[in-house]
């Protein structure tokens, strides 16, 4: 098993492509009563954190630390914007898996985020952060009546 592919794309719960597929523009922008964020907001947050971490985008990191951690609107402008976001999240998840193929990279220093951290640590944290928001997205889909586990599902 390629554990990094499992952690970022396919395993421990539904494939990320399944979690993010088959949603309407209206559904991704809705905040069910009591939910602080919509599906779009949850994914934007996860995607932006993943992107700025892997790109080492210091300017974006500063904006993030300054409170810009969610988008300015609960839903995307249009379907193309939603597709762009999902494509970007999945592309960066695939990039994380490719980076993790390099053992030297994994053991290299990433102490900008945490003292003594390696890139292995950073990718572990990223996979966990993604999972937290994927869980919320799946529950939001259930609330909207648009969730069926994939046929080979290990998780609901």
């Amino acid at each position, binding site marked *: 098993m390629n554990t990094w592919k499992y*952690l970022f794309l396919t395993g*421990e719960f539904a494939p990320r492509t399944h979690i993010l597929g088959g949603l309407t523009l209206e559904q991704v922008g809705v905040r069910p009563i009591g939910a602080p964020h919509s599906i779009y907001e949850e994914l934007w947050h996860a995607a932006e954190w993943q992107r700025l971490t892997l790109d080492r985008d210091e300017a974006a990191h500063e904006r993030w630390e300054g409170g810009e951690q969610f988008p300015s609107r609960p839903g995307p402008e249009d379907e193309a914007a939603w597709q762009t976001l999902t494509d970007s999240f999945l592309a960066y998840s695939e990039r994380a898996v490719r980076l993790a193929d390099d053992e030297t990279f994994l053991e290299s220093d990433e102490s900008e985020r945490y003292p003594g951290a390696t890139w292995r640590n950073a990718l572990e944290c990223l996979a966990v952060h993604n999972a937290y928001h994927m869980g919320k997205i799946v529950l939001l889909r*259930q609330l909207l009546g648009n969730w069926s586990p994939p046929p080979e599902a290990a998780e609901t």
Partner: protein
Amino acid sequence: MTILQRLFTDLEFAPREHIVTVPFAYVGVQPGAAHHSIYEELWHLTKWQNFVLLLARGKAVRNDYNEEAFPDRQAPEDENAWLELVSEFLAGSAQAVALAGDEDALAVSLSDGLTVRERLELLAVHNTYHLGKIVLLRQLLGIWVPPPDDAEA
């Protein structure tokens, strides 16, 4: 504590103990069309955590363990049952922390071809998926109070 250890305690989102400290009256509720209650989510992740920790410690495990298992009831029998489940989850998390702090143990290859570290990474991600659901369930029920300095909603 190392980063891997802290992925079982407080890193990336609210402290796990804070998340599972839930008023009993709400643990068996399925708000709206949610598929599972807080109790069901915690039961599922706790039992899987127990199983994985046995694997990671090289103990014999059942080959037919159903990783999709959820309890046969939506709510615990009584408050004692709930508190016991919470204790079981936290005790398992403490075991994961102890194992994650043992560099020699982390490198051990298990019979399934994974290392102990890889098993713990997978476990942390699985736990987190369900803890994220529990946080949102609490928000939907109006009983979520973020801990101080919580960077994650």
